[in-house]
């Protein structure tokens, strides 16, 4: 299965989840949810055993797992889905924020306030469009690095200095006065 196949499969799952939530009858949705939970549970158990075998298989087990998840997005997403990712949510969110800050180029800044398990609070400071853009970039990157995180963003925005600046227009009266003086 290629990475594209995997992404397509995940897209299909997202679509089916949305349909189940909107189209399932009230009395059948709990059954669908139970089925999904049961499927995820058996996968979690199997993957957990696989990871345990990797970690006890040799001293390079854990670092090797980190290398695998960093080079194989499909594995990373499955492990994140089951809370089995070898890197903590906090570490992955920090990585996402570093990348987001690089994109912002110093015009705004995102920083981790706290990570309580999967609950992550991020502060974004800056002004105007740069800060807004950084929020979107951070949300996107956190979703990619840590889809198992629940992100809360605290916005500390300053007014955009350009928003209140006087427009670069010369009043008509001054233009007329200037024109008269030249005559």
């Amino acid at each position: 299965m290629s990475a594209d196949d995997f992404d397509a499969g995940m897209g299909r799952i997202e679509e089916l989840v949305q349909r189940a939530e909107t189209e399932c009858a009230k009395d059948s949705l709990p059954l669908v949810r139970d089925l999904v939970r049961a499927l995820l549970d058996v996968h979690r158990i199997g993957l957990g055993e696989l990871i345990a075998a990797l970690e006890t298989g040799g001293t390079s087990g854990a670092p090797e797992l980190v290398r695998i998840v960093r080079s194989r997005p499909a594995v990373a997403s499955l492990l994140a889905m089951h809370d089995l990712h070898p890197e903590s949510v906090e570490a992955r969110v920090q990585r996402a924020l570093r990348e987001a800050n690089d994109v912002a180029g110093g015009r705004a800044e995102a920083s981790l306030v706290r990570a309580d398990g999967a609950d992550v609070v991020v502060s974004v400071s800056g002004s105007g469009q740069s800060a807004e853009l950084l929020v979107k970039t951070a949300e996107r990157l956190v979703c990619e690095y840590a889809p198992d995180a629940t992100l809360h963003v605290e916005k500390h925005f300053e007014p955009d200095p350009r928003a209140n600046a006087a427009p670069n227009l010369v009043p008509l009266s001054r233009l007329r006065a200037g024109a008269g003086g030249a005559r």
Partner: protein
Amino acid sequence: MMSHDTGRAVSALRNFARRPEPESRCDLCNAPVAESHAHLYEPEPRRIACACIACSFLFPEGTAGRYRSLHSRATRAAGVELVEDDFRALEIPVRLAFLAPSDVHARVFATYPTSHGATESVVPRAAWDALAERTALSVAPDAEGLLIDYLGGRTRCFVASLDVCYRFVGLLRAGGAARGTAFASAMRFLDGLGGLDGGGHG
């Protein structure tokens, strides 16, 4: 790093699996109702509706109208003994069934499990009348049903309010490989009916 779309799908699946079921609501006024709540019956579409206390008082049991309040109950019909000929006359191919007489539809409906899940049919009126007369059976039309367990050749019957009967039918919905599990669930349900008398059931 996974793609943003895949990350979003992972998040959606996790949230779906972890989300608690939404609280039950009154089908009439949409007010939240407790897990244990009243039910109304709509005879025309033969449907059960969840109801808050206020709405359930609007439609007393035994009155005609679109909705009828149901008082959850199940009573062992100790005097009802069935024989194989009864099932032939009622045209029911299995020995676990729910029969519901309806004045609104002028019929007696039967629901029973098949390999495709729960199946419904209309039983011959004469067979139902003969059974009721022979066993002195009293089942209120459009309010009660008769739950029949004749598995193993011994009779166990309950006269139960329709909300109880529909919960029984819900257990029989599974077909195919899950049919055995559905049977076991239905039998356990009947085992637990002995002590049921009054009170709401979600």
